[in-house]
């Protein structure tokens, strides 16, 4: 480079290495060194920009330059290549400063066909950074790339490949995806070209996998693992790792090749690999990539390969104990990068107890390392080790160190890892200790992670509660310490559990009563306290210190400071009090009658006050006792808190609860809250029975539910705030087992229709929301919550041309359609839930329904001869593969109807198989993304006894049982 030197060297200029020195960028002066071809004009321009004292000055200087460049490009005089390059480079600099550039693309494209390397290079850089979808330009760019790829000049070829990889657009994929594999495996391609081709192909594959054709070349790609050139191997492994995830079988041979390559690297002396040795560590990048590749597969089946691999893993673990060959951090980082990747592979295999425990010990050493980075990674990696049955106990031995980390680490991201690990290592033996440490941490925890800690504590407390008074104490402590971060899910859950367990109700009432004594207690405490006292206040009413009037005045002292939602809940508590404690009736009626309630500006509050007042004056004590009866137990389903944590953290977050494998006893006790028979009662069907609602207002809270519709949608599986017309939601749901279209729900306001179709493991469901009233529904928001194994994707609704907003309006008399795309990933038992919320005349409405997606929707009928059927029937003879039910007929026993139902259920009906012609025999395959489940069924009607016997045999136990239960309810 013949760049003229500027007058002075920058005084503050200093080398960037080593890290951590004070900054150099204080003076705006051109650098002394300019390598390659200096572009003086560019350097002057950059220097000018740096000298600008204000943003305005900078913009002014840039505009001046843009005008200059534009005139040069438009000028009559043809620009030479050098000038063009310089101006294009200036434009690029301006763009990278954050300004928009709307010209110069054509000049950049012209540079691509220059035969001067640096001009071509700048052209490609510009195109890579400022891609423009102008089709004419793309055609020209692709032409230039095509020429360079065909040029046989490796440097030009690499430039072209870099450009494709940097842009990675679908257009580029369409133009080149077919050529690049050829370049990659061609015998005469230079090493550098192969490297670029491999990673270029990887980028195109990631962007548009459909455009990359698999074929004969794939086998040859795998053999690049044997290439002599380490750089080629390094690039190829990344490509193979990505491709093999989609087609594991096609790439299976890569396992043994990867193992032998890894083995050679791991056992090589620290200098053998010359320039591929990094601070005395042989080929760290390649080693890490090979270990990643192996994590795409289960342990090698071939014993020799497996033996060799285990040897490698042991060598890596052994080397970690050797004294370092250098004091440099680069040495230990590279070495430990391999070590952590090795541990990841060991955890992935989860089959070598010896290696797992060694890995755990190694991580244990890192927990106390002076390097923060290593402590962080050790905590993170131990989290996954904690979920292995082989290493769970070993992880637990580090509990004190981890608790200490939670208390003393100065970096919040490290403390968060410590909290994660405590959560992961928690089991019955240490739950009390861990929960109390996490509660203590919560008092000083960073705001950013409080909500997550609250969720974790709530889950652990529920999961490992031996006595539920501890659980109640813990949740109340959560509200006390971090009330703002206690989400609805958490406090709903404590109510569910207290309602379902009568052994803790008295304790809960006493404890909330005490907690409410605090002068400034959190509103969530008022909610929990209000609800619990409304249900179980009678259990502590014997004590004069918590007599009914005391309970009431304590709650009412909080009333005026609370939000509308809480006040609505308290009003329900009050009406419940009237039933529980007749002596409070007069006082409470006085409160309800007050103008501030009866004429409250909030419709919901006003309505409750009016209705509760009327109810308390009109209804007899018997009726009152029936209407305001204690809440029935809640049906058990996945903890909503856990679901929330999973939503927050993605799959795997709930690992502490998926521990049935290592702690089989845990499920028996805390797997679910058993409904206690003593409190079971049937909710009375409708308030209309009381004759109280001559003209029911649209948003009448169901008087039966005690707490009103604030809670009903969360707690109930089916019933909506508005009583539904026709079949109950559960009945409607069951009707859909054997059919795909119909009305799923209907009440006075809303009708929800369903049309669906299923093919293989995919389905599409159209939901029609019809507004039956003449008033607009506002903030109409239907959301689908689905269990992990079913994936739904909500498509735009008609008539909205845009993606469906979170909520929208539905005009009176109008119908809105929503489309759900459904993919069945694995067999599943629980259907997704559809939750619909909207406002009607200002009052919130909500309902939650089961969506009619059951496992049998993914049935493919299979025709087979009698002989085949019996052979398969015999193959599925393990007791757990069979499910059988004998039940009474609920409908007239009509053979044609039965046939139609079985076909609607999805199976093929096989004639001439069963010796008894009255019997029905069917077969089919359930298609899920992960696996197929073959199913055989037999239905034997007994007309005389009006009974059926149904037998299901499938290759998966839960599927047999589940299908049997679904089908048995159809006859």
């Amino acid at each position, binding site marked *: 480079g*013949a760049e*003229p030197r500027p007058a002075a060297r*920058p005084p503050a*200029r200093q*080398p*960037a*290495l*080593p890290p951590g*020195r*004070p*900054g*150099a*960028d204080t003076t705006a002066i*051109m*650098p002394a060194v*300019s*390598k*390659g*071809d200096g572009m003086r004009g560019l350097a002057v321009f*950059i220097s000018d920009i740096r000298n600008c004292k204000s943003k305005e000055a900078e913009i002014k200087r840039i505009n001046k330059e843009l005008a200059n460049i534009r005139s040069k490009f438009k000028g009559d005089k043809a620009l*030479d290549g050098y000038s063009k390059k310089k101006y294009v*480079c200036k434009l690029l600099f301006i763009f990278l400063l*954050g300004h928009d550039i709307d010209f110069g693309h054509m000049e950049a494209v012209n540079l691509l066909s220059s*035969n001067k390397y*640096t001009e071509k*290079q700048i052209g490609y*850089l510009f195109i890579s950074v400022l891609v423009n979808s102008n089709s004419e330009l793309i055609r020209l760019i692709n032409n230039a790339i095509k020429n360079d790829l065909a040029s046989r000049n490796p*440097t030009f070829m*690499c430039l072209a490949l870099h450009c494709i*990889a940097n842009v*990675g657009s679908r257009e580029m994929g369409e133009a080149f995806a077919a050529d690049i594999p050829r370049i990659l495996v061609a015998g005469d391609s230079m090493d550098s070209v192969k*490297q*670029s081709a491999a*990673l270029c192909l*990887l*980028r195109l594959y990631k962007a548009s996998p459909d455009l990359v054709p698999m074929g004969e070349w794939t086998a040859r790609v795998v053999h690049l693992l044997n290439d002599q050139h380490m*750089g080629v191997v*390094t*690039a190829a492994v*990344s490509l193979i790792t990505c491709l093999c995830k989609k087609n594991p079988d096609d790439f299976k041979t890569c396992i043994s090749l990867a193992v032998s390559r890894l083995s050679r690297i791991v056992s090589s002396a620290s200098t053998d690999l010359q320039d*591929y040795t*990094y601070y005395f560590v042989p*080929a*760290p*990048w390649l080693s*890490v990539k090979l270990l*990643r590749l192996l994590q795409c597969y289960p342990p090698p089946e071939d014993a020799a390969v497996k033996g060799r691999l285990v040897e490698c893993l042991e060598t890596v673990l052994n080397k970690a104990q050797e004294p370092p060959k250098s004091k440099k951090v680069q040495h230990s*980082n*590279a070495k430990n*990068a391999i070590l*952590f*990747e090795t541990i*990841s592979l060991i955890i992935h295999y989860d089959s070598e107890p010896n290696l797992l425990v060694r890995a755990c010990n190694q991580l244990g050493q890192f927990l106390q390392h002076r390097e*923060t980075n290593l402590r*962080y*990674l050790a905590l993170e990696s131990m989290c996954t080790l904690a979920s292995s049955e082989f290493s769970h106990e070993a992880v637990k031995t580090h509990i004190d160190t981890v608790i200490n980390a939670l208390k003393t680490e*100065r*970096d919040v*991201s*490290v403390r968060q890892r410590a909290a994660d690990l405590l959560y992961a290592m928690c089991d019955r033996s240490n739950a009390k200790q861990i929960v109390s440490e996490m509660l203590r941490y919560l008092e000083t925890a960073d705001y950013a992670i409080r909500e997550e800690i609250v969720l974790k504590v709530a889950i652990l407390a529920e999961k490992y509660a031996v006595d539920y008074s501890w659980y109640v104490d813990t949740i109340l402590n959560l509200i006390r310490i971090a009330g703002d971060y206690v989400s609805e899910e958490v406090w709903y859950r404590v109510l569910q559990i207290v309602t379902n367990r009568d052994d803790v109700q008295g304790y809960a009432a006493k404890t909330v009563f005490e907690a409410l004594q605090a002068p400034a207690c959190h509103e969530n405490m008022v909610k929990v306290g209000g609800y619990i006292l409304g249900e179980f206040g009678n259990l502590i009413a014997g004590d004069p210190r918590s007599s009914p009037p005391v309970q009431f005045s304590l709650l009412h002292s909080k009333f005026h400071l609370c939000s509308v939602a809480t006040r609505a809940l308290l009003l329900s508590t009050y009406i419940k009090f009237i039933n529980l404690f007749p002596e409070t009736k007069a006082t409470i009626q006085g409160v309800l009658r007050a103008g501030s309630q009866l004429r409250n500006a909030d419709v919901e509050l006003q309505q409750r006050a009016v209705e509760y007042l009327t109810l308390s004056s009109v209804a007899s004590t018997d009726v009152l006792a029936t209407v305001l009866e204690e809440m029935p137990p809640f049906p058990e389903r996945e903890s909503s808190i856990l679901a929330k944590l999973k939503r927050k953290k993605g799959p795997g977050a709930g690992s502490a609860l998926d521990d049935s494998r290592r702690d089989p006893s845990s499920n028996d006790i805390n797997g679910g809250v058993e409904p206690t028979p003593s409190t079971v009662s049937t909710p009375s069907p409708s308030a209309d029975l009381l004759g109280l609602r001559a003209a029911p207002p649209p948003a009448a809270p169901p008087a039966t539910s005690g707490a009103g519709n604030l809670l009903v949608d969360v707690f109930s599986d089916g019933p909506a705030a508005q009583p539904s017309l026709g079949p109950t939601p559960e009945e409607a749901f069951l009707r859909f087992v054997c059919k795909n279209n119909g009305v799923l729900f209907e009440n006075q306001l809303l009708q929800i229709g369903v049309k669906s179709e299923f093919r293989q493991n995919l389905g599409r469901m159209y939901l029609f929301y019809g507004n039956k009233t003449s008033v607009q529904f506002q903030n109409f928001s239907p959301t689908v919550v689905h269990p992990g194994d079913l994936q739904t994707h909500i498509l735009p609704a008609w008539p909205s041309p845009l993606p469906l907003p979170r909520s929208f309006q539905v005009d009176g008399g109008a119908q809105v359609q929503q489309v759900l795309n459904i993919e069945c990933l694995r067999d599943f038992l629980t259907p997704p839930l559809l939750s619909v919320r909207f406002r009607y005349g200002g009052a919130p409405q909500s309902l939650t329904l089961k969506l009619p997606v059951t496992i049998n929707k993914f049935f493919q009928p299979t025709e087979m001869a009698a002989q085949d059927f019996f052979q398969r029937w015999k193959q599925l003879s393990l007791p757990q593969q069979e499910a059988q039910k004998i039940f009474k007929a609920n409908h007239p026993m009509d053979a044609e109807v039965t046939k139609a139902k079985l076909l609607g259920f999805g199976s093929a009906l096989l004639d001439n198989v069963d010796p008894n012609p009255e019997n029905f025999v069917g077969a089919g395959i359930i298609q899920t993304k992960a696996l197929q489940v073959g199913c055989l069924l037999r239905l034997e009607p007994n007309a005389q006894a009006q009974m059926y016997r149904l037998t299901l045999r499938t290759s998966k136990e839960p599927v047999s049982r589940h299908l049997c239960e679904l089908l048995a309810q159809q006859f």
Partner: protein
Amino acid sequence: MQFMLLFSRQGKLRLQKWYVPLSDKEKKKITRELVQTVLARKPKMCSFLEWRDLKIVYKRYASLYFCCAIEDQDNELITLEIIHRYVELLDKYFGSVCELDIIFNFEKAYFILDEFLLGGEVQETSKKNVLKAIEQADLLQEGGAEAEGERESLKQTPY
């Protein structure tokens, strides 16, 4: 790797390389957010942090922060050494590199990065091989661009 950002202590972006398709608006938003987050961290803190669903690995060299976003399964420590190897490559090429070199020769910084990382993956780890590719390019141009170089220097610095 999803992207790499180089920025100064004053928060000025010096290099940006994106390996996933994002709109310019989104890129600017991410940059703003990350620069702020990283600059707010104290010196002795760990080099990794969770950000959205990605892992951020960063390290400071003199006045410059190097910041990479990697995916969940990616290896943090090896990413730190990707950063270091890139610094070494710049250092070898420029000879004791400093932030000014990257400002004034930004295009070179991009070229070197492309030889080292492609599509977000390590392409070539040998320092020799990477610099050979770049220097070959410099040699190639010197043959062709000599006339231009001469012309400029004649104009500016008469003998």
